């Protein structure tokens, strides 16, 4: 029995490998060697620290509104780690981790959140779309890119990242349905972080799981522990292999929790209490992986401290670079709307330049 059959959404089981106490579920091998696991832990940590830094920069007025990923690191690292060169991802707005894992420099990511569109220009060859603010709209693009790949005979896969709230949108439905009909190599990766701003998961939809929504479109869905790096990786790998071999899309519901505010503009005390958060704390993806690595003798406070220092140094450097990028010239806002600036726009640009004198 394949993974998706074993964890058919109506069976009510969540796929988990690494248990909260840092031990493994019985009869399941970890997908990574110890050095590889350690290496991935480093990435989780780096992402967490970069995320914290972004929050701090925002608080200091050095960055615009920012959407922190605190708690969702494993969803992003575990899923992107299954990809190959040439694959594509389609982030929503809470995907610093996934974006960076794909190879977009942190400097780009920070630049974007500082309010400079140039940050969204991913390096050539790295197929990461810019942040997509309108909730639930970008999975269609992931389907379209995957579909084009099929038509061209490219063996790539696409992952669309979105939240529990996004599943309520009409565009999510249309994307899922097209993916099912045209068997596109698309992974719908839902980070169910229990909230859409203030609206809790259970008020978002009456379906017991988000995974079972896949049944409406005739393809596989699975609920996995999104704070378990191993489970996210293994289930995504399965979906990616399936997609790459032409067997169509998969919906993966990662159960996770947003520890931080929705964005830096949000005050979560308006809609949730500390007590509600408490049970989630021990499920923290980093905590859990630390326990696992500690059990292997690969982690202790000293290791953590030195990883921390390395990461902070790297992040310091990125912040310096991002902050030294000069503000955009006025031409820039006109220059990329079309391949060539049409006469009206040119006129408007000239007028604006004049007015700035």
């Amino acid at each position, binding site marked *: 029995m394949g993974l998706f059959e074993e964890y058919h959404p109506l069976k009510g089981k969540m796929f988990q490998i690494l248990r909260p106490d840092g031990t493994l579920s019985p009869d399941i091998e970890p997908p990574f060697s110890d050095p590889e696991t350690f290496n991935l832990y480093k990435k989780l940590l780096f992402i967490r620290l970069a995320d914290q830094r972004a929050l701090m920069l925002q608080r200091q007025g050095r960055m615009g509104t920012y959407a922190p990923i605190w708690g969702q690191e494993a969803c992003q690292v575990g899923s992107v780690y299954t990809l190959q060169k040439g694959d594509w991802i389609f982030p929503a707005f809470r995907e610093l981790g996934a974006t960076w894992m794909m190879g977009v420099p942190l400097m780009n990511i920070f630049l974007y959140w*500082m309010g400079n569109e140039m940050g969204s220009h991913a390096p050539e060859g790295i197929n990461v779309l810019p942040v997509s603010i309108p909730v639930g709209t970008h999975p269609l693009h992931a389907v379209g890119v995957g579909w084009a790949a099929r038509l061209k005979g490219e063996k790539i896969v696409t992952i669309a990242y979105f939240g529990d709230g996004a599943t309520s949108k009409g565009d999510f439905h249309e994307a899922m349905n097209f993916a099912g009909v045209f068997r596109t190599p698309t992974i719908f990766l839902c980070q169910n972080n229990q909230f859409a701003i203030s609206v809790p998961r259970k008020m978002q939809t009456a379906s017991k799981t988000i995974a079972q929504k896949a049944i409406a479109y005739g393809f596989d869905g699975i609920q996995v522990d999104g704070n378990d790096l191993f489970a996210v990786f293994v289930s995504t790998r399965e979906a990616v292999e399936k997609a790459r071999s032409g067997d169509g899309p998969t919906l993966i519901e990662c159960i996770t929790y947003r520890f931080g505010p929705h964005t830096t503009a949000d005050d979560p005390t308006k809609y949730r209490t500390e007590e509600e958060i408490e049970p989630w704390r021990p499920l923290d993806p980093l905590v859990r992986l630390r326990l696992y690595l500690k059990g292997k003798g690969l982690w202790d406070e000293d290791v953590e401290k030195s990883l921390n220092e390395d990461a902070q140094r790297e992040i310091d450097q990125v912040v310096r670079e991002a902050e030294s990028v000069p503000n955009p010239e006025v031409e820039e*806002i006109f220059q990329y*709307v079309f391949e060539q600036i049409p006469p009206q726009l040119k006129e408007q640009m000239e007028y604006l330049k004049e007015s700035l004198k």
Partner: protein
Amino acid sequence: MSKLNMVEAINMALLEEMERDNRIVILGEDVGREGGVFRVTDGLQERFGPERVIDTPLAESGIVGTAMGMALNGLRPVAEIQFDGFLYPCLDQITNHIGRIRNRSRGRFTCQMVIRVPYGGGIHAPEHHSESPEAILAHTPGIKVVIPSTPYEAKGLLISSIRDPDPVLFLEPKRIYRAIREEVPEGDYTIPIGKARLIKEGKDVTVIAWGAMVREVFSAAEKLRGDNIDVEIIDLRTVFPMDIETIVNSIRKTGRGVIVHEAPKTCGLGAEIIAQINEKALLSLQAPIERVTGFDIPVPLLKSEHYYLPNPKRIVMAVKKVMSF
């Protein structure tokens, strides 16, 4: 009487109307427990309960489409679309149903509802949080479009909108949600839909604006006083149906005009105002009407947003241009 900002004034209007008329319900994303991302509906769920102040799933077409259904069945929904950029998923329901059901059914079914939308730029927000869709709405048959420019205005216009028998799009200039405080009386008062407000008389040039731009025009007028240019200021208030009479009368008097809006220039509301002036007061014109507007580009992110937004400097330039034509 207390001095309120626009958020508080709108909140007061909602609260008072909901007490007066129990057919009114509020629905939208985060409007309940959270009290709205701008706190416009703060406290209302506590007061009226979750059946009258409803947190919905994240689906804008669903919000306005079900709100229309509620209106068909005698409720008076006030739907909130969280930000202007997320109005686009509703345009199908608004254009193809909400604005048409009265006409389609020859009056058998009607749709008394309000859609509130915080709109416009200037708050350093992410993409899609700074849009000005008023011209698109004005081009859509069967809906009214109202935009307040101060707290007092907001309360009176919202009460009128809620009581209006037709669907009203109520666009709230989020940039000045908290920027202006003024006296806002408790209790009932209405401001008629379809009437512009002549804020300041002046003899040299008419400047027309709405929403957050009215304040920019005020600053510009201050500056222009130093140059001995006497500006007449009109706050349009209602985008559709437009108070053409007030505009035309003013232009007949001053002979010169400037229109200020944040939306892209091409096919913005400014064009319609000019067309109306062309039609009804061409011979009064001493100079071409000037438009001070956003550009035909997406509103830039925060590092470049200042390039985009009309500001007093550009308004002064335009006024001087029409004065020296």
